[in-house]
């Protein structure tokens, strides 16, 4: 049973990302969107937690939300896959269910 | 109340500002000014066009004192003063000119 987890809150303001990372299993997909995309950037205080998770989980980030916030895709943590809205739909379809960490 | 310009209908809000600023065509200013019994001259158009450029750059309609200062900087002191601007737009250069320019009500006009 595969789950797509989505995180739409800033990791510095809410513990949504933390709780997602501790309640998700190996092989799952995690999509960062809206303010959640800040967690995808290099050089932040949460970078190591995200990288640790990436050892066993696949992490994605939503491109339009990265662009809106003035963040550069060059500065995304290596290995995070940037997807567009169509990619988001594909991810929802290829997983059995979606858990949205609000 | 919606206004008619060249046979086309434009929605406005309860204060007469254009509902969608992307709809704007110069004819909107002509129709609105006629309703106010005001004849638009080149001097009026300078201010209307200036406001549209300001909005394009900053995404807000400037308050009247901000407009006055900015006009003075761009077009000279003889135009960047309330006397000149109120002479052109007696209902208030911020509100009236912004309305003609299809902008929302100025931010910071109370």
């Amino acid at each position: 049973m595969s789950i797509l987890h989505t995180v739409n809150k800033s990791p510095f303001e809410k513990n949504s990302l933390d709780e997602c990372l501790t309640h998700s299993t190996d092989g799952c997909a995690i999509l960062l969107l809206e303010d959640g995309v800040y967690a995808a950037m290099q050089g932040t205080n949460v970078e190591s937690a995200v990288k640790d998770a990436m050892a066993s989980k696949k992490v994605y980030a939503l491109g339009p939300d990265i662009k809106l916030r003035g963040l550069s895709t060059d500065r995304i943590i290596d290995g995070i896959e940037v997807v567009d809205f169509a990619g988001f739909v594909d991810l929802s379809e290829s997983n059995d269910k979606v858990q949205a960490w609000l | 109340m919606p206004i008619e310009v060249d046979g086309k209908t434009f929605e406005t809000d309860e204060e007469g500002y254009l509902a969608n600023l992307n709809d704007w065509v110069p004819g909107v200013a002509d129709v609105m000014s006629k309703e106010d019994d005001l004849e638009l001259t080149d001097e009026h158009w300078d201010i209307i066009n200036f406001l549209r450029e300001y909005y394009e750059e900053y995404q807000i309609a400037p308050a009247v004192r901000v407009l006055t200062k900015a006009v003075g900087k761009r077009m000279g002191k003889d135009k960047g003063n309330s006397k000149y601007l109120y002479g052109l737009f007696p209902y208030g250069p911020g509100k009236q000119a912004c309305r003609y320019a299809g902008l929302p009500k100025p931010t910071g006009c109370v």
Partner: protein
Amino acid sequence: MSKIKKFMYVNRRAPYGTVYALESLEVVLIGAAFDQDVSLAFIGDGVYQLKSDQDSSDSDQKNFSPIYQALGDYDVSKLYVEKESLEERGLTLEELMPLTYEDEDDDWAEKDSIRVVSRDEMAELMDQQDVLFNF
């Protein structure tokens, strides 16, 4: 006339995800009509509001970052950005929008509005205010 008061607007949220940043900006612009000594503080995720290159072309939300450029016209020229908040987010001053104002007392010379201060300095600045608004 009553004494000029020191007003500080404290911005703590990222733009777009919630409406706080835009609401704060609108209150600042409206409040600027009342000649007070206004400053803006950016702490925590608030520093993201000033990130350069915000681009809404792939998004259905409006990019409101150009409004920060108008603050100088509204005589709002003191934007304090907390150093530690930038560092925690892997950001530098160079990645923020350049924001300037024209100094009336110095022959309208163009000057930077953004000042990076430490967390301790920010606490001091807050102590000096008469009125604080927290968004």
